[in-house]
């Protein structure tokens, strides 16, 4: 595929009416992949006033055309309706590549979009390299990070790419004279076979997905009870982070499986990972060992988690974690140097 024929379509995912950061990471990848002479389109699904802010941001960061699709069926995420909306954008744009975040929604949409266009899907991309000749190589984890592979697309079919949150740079702003245009795309949702009967919203999700979080405070069996997560929650709140867990903690019923990090849970790459009362089983390490800075707090000096921790504290988490919270409350009220 020569550069000039490349056209990208980015699914600009929103959460609670706001553009998700991963949408701008996907946009950055799209701009890198089409290179000079290519076109980058974005599609915003679900309208309202928030969409116009999101659309403006996409246009300011290099989306040449922002297609806004609105329909009552798109008010909340519904895979059938959203896949149909992306299908409408694909029909309008005829992209050579479609990019989405490797988020819960992206993971549901991308395979359907890929199969619909009979394209390839490279999922959970953590790095994108391009050469001047137009070659593109994608790095992605295997076994939740126990290994990595580099893949490329073969010629002849559209590309579908899902990018792992937190790994690719955000799309830069473009000069005002190169900002994109915003256009409504006509769309009528097809009859849907799936109906949503109820949603029990998570109280503490706060809109931050574990995979997108910059800071994670994770608890293991060492927290001993559901209430044992309270000091971890306080630390996470102080640091502007979110809670995570080992399978040990989930199996023991101290927390929800949705918090599980590891080979059979979520793979995360935050800037800071604080493991509290987690031994560091191979399945857990697989899911978090690519974090930028790892802190381990464990009372067992031989715990395997220390073998990958940048900073280790041998001690009782119930003593250390509240002290850390206090220390950080103080520190964060003072400017850094």
């Amino acid at each position, binding site marked *: 595929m020569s550069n000039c024929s490349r056209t990208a379509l980015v699914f600009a995912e929103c959460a609670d009416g706001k553009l998700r950061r991963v949408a701008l990471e996907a946009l950055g990848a799209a701009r890198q992949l089409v290179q000079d002479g290519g076109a980058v389109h974005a599609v915003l699904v679900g309208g309202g006033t928030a969409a116009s802010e999101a659309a403006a941001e996409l246009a300011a960061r290099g989306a040449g055309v922002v297609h806004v699709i609105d329909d009552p069926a798109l008010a909340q995420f519904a895979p059938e309706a959203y896949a149909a909306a992306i299908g409408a954008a694909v029909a309008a744009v005829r992209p050579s590549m479609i990019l989405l975040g490797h988020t819960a929604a992206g993971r549901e949409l991308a395979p359907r979009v890929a199969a619909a266009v009979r394209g390839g899907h490279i999922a959970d991309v953590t790095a994108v390299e391009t050469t001047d000749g137009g070659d593109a190589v994608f790095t992605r984890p295997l076994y939740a990070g126990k290994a990595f592979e580099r893949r490329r697309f073969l010629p002849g079919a559209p590309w579908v790419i899902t990018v792992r949150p937190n790994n690719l740079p955000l799309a830069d702003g473009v000069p005002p004279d190169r900002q994109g245009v915003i256009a409504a795309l006509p769309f009528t949702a097809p009859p849907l076979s799936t109906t949503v009967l109820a949603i029990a919203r998570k109280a503490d999700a706060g809109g931050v997905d574990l995979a997108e979080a910059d800071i994670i405070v994770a608890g293991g069996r060492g927290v001993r009870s559901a209430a044992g997560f309270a000091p971890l929650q306080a630390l996470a709140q102080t640091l502007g982070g979110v809670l995570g867990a080992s399978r040990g903690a989930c199996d023991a019923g101290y927390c929800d499986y949705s918090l599980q990090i590891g080979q059979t849970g979520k793979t995360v790459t935050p800037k800071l990972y604080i493991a509290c009362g987690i031994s560091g089983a191979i399945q857990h390490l697989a899911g978090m060992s690519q974090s930028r*800075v790892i802190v381990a707090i464990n009372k067992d000096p031989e715990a395997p988690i220390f073998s990958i921790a940048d900073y280790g504290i041998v001690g009782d988490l119930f003593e250390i974690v509240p002290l850390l919270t206090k220390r950080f409350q103080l520190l964060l009220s003072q400017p850094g140097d």
Partner: protein
Amino acid sequence: MNMVVLVKQTFDTEEKIELAHGAINEDHVKFIINPYDEYALEEALRLREKHGGRVTVAACGPSRAAETLRTALAMGADEAVLIEESGLGEDGHTIAAALAAAVKELAPDLVLAGLFAIDRGAGSIALQVAERLRLPHAAAALKIEIHRNVETPAAAASPADTELAQSPSPDFTAVVQRDTEWGLETVQLPLPALITAQQGLNEPRYPSLPGIMKAKRKALHHLTIAELDLTPDDLNPRTERLALLSPPPRAAGRKLAGTPEEQADALAGLLRSEAKLF
């Protein structure tokens, strides 16, 4: 109720991944059913106990995947299909095409699969199969209830829209509780449909001794791609692997000494001054 469960054989989660000569070393490796597929299979067995019917397990993989299918039969599946992967490459497009072709022939009411496979971790193939067969899906199920329809519910799509139109009118409706980023969502969809299993859906059973004995007599069909209704384009891989890499090595850092107060102070200080985090 006729069910198909898509299963994949994966490395045991305890295994370290060693690279040798540009490939992953498989010597002395223990293989298991992908844990998420095991939840899907367990759910199919429980649904059969409740509603009757058949459970067929289908895999696409190398010949060693037959062991995994035997285990699935020992757990209680009625029948197994192994599509030999040779000629398919290791690309989602071709594998989804082959699985979709095999599933279509079985004309199931319900297709179950794991949320993702813990080796490649893409979570792509099952939903590509759903799209190819024009089945609605519910992802990341934590609870599945199947209701036999008294009358066709108004919400149900006409079965003529799906590639599985040979199955009778929508006899069943699924009510699925699924795990999403925003909370627990309950959805209703008509069968035929595809549902993926999330961890927490159930506690998979171990194969019993009589189960293992019975499994030896159950049918395990080997299919080659030539026996499936596939177009030349279905067999054209869309992606290829260029290289395998080990993760960047991570050296152990240091342990912070002192009283708990001193340790906490030191950590907070280092995260700011050395790690430049705050």
